[in-house]
């Protein structure tokens, strides 16, 4: 028999002993209450250590680390300001009409973004794989998608400023099958919506509507959350005949996008949250829709 020591107990706790040693240690534990107490205390302290550091893995990844992992450089830029959807607005016709009236100047300012999009192609290269002067194919891909992405951002801003419940073809509650069917009929493939009301996102589905991005129909899904670090998000799902592409980051003014193409569909997750959150949420979207 090997000597009875703390090392042995710890190795036992870590599952690092072979079968014969395990039996010896278990016999020892059966006969020695002090050893059992010791083992319990060691297990407790190990659990505490894990808890103490576990929260780090749930934090959003800083932009600079994602950029470093992709071989890019990110300039120090202030974090995006989170725009909340306007809370507490009813669905009655009079408030809605007032909201639309007040929103006209904003809609006008977004008009160019939605239809043109050529002027606002600002800083895609900064966040693309390879960065400026880096991977040319990625930059070309971004340029080709530029209008579609501009439209996605425009629709995000419109939804964020229009308020909760506005601009919705498919409401979050009630029987929405018919409305979904209409949207799906406008697209080459059926549209489903991912449930993002999970920890840690807590994103509530607020509705969806049919939009036109780069001249093609697309579904815009809207989400809100009480998590101020995330803010409102929209997911655009459209069709694409282009080859599949991996998730790629882009930025338009103060809005971040994570976009990709998969099996005839184009996706863009749009919001003003950190890109670390976008990556995590996109993973959930991809998993639920099998999109990546």
């Amino acid at each position, binding site marked *: 028999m090997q000597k009875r020591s703390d090392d042995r107990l710890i190795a036992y706790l870590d599952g690092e002993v072979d079968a014969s040693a395990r039996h010896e240690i278990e016999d020892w534990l059966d006969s020695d209450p002090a050893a059992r107490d010791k083992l319990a205390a060691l297990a407790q302290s190990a659990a505490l*250590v894990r808890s103490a550091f576990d929260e780090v893995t749930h*934090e959003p990844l800083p932009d600079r680390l994602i950029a*470093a992992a992709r071989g890019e450089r990110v300039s120090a830029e202030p974090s995006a300001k989170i725009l909340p959807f306007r809370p507490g607005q009813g669905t009655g016709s009079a408030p809605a009409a007032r909201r639309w009236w007040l929103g006209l100047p904003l809609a006008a300012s977004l008009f160019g973004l939605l239809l043109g999009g050529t002027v606002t192609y600002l800083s895609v290269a900064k966040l693309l794989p390879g960065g400026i002067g880096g991977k040319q194919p990625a930059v070309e891909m971004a340029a080709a998608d530029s209008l579609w992405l501009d439209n996605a951002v425009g629709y995000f801003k419109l939804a964020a400023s229009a308020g909760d419940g506005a601009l919705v073809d498919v409401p979050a509650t009630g029987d929405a099958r018919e409305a979904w069917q209409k949207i799906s009929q406008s697209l080459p493939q059926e549209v489903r919506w991912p449930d993002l009301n999970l920890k840690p996102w807590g994103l509530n589905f607020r509705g969806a509507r049919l939009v036109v991005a780069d001249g093609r129909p697309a579904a815009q899904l809207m989400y809100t959350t009480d998590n101020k670090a995330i803010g409102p998000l929209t997911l655009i799902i459209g069709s694409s005949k282009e080859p599949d592409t991996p998730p790629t980051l882009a930025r338009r003014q103060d809005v971040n996008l994570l976009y990709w193409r998969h099996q005839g569909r184009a996706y863009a997750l749009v919001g003003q949250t950190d890109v670390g959150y976008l990556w995590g949420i996109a993973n959930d979207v991809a998993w639920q829709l099998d999109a990546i």
Partner: protein
Amino acid sequence: MSIRFGDQLIAVLPRLRRFARGLTGSAVEADDLVQAACERALARQHQFQEGTRFDSWMFRIVQTIWIDQVRSRDVRKDGGDVAEERMGSDEAVRRVEARLALDEVRRAVGRLAPDQRTALLLVTVDGLSYKETAEIVGVPIGTIMSRLARARIALQLQLETGGGMRRSTDNAEAQ
């Protein structure tokens, strides 16, 4: 750079950050360390052998850079970021106490010798085997076992003295 390499790197970032946070005791220093490790990994990606564990390779890079830093300067750890929280209810008090207990654990880990801390973080926090840890650190398995044992005993003594374990137990019972 291959996209696959960058994607692998992004996938392992949360664990690298956790490891680095444990090593440095500081969020900012930890992210600096991970960033430096990413840059070194990209510069030396040709040295990574396909078929071997990418995460182990990255842990080794983080650990190597950190050891270099420890040797070249006196690494000072901050006392941990314990945000103030209003105490208006039992729940708030429990949350503060739980946070204090975990902060005490982090400080206790920070007081361990660097080689013990490394073994503890890789085995106990990240769940790597002794063999994998020995390969990352570049020492025999027996050395990892003894470092780990010293770390666990020292940690337990510190927590018992500081009351972290008692507070944690109280919190667990209260919930």
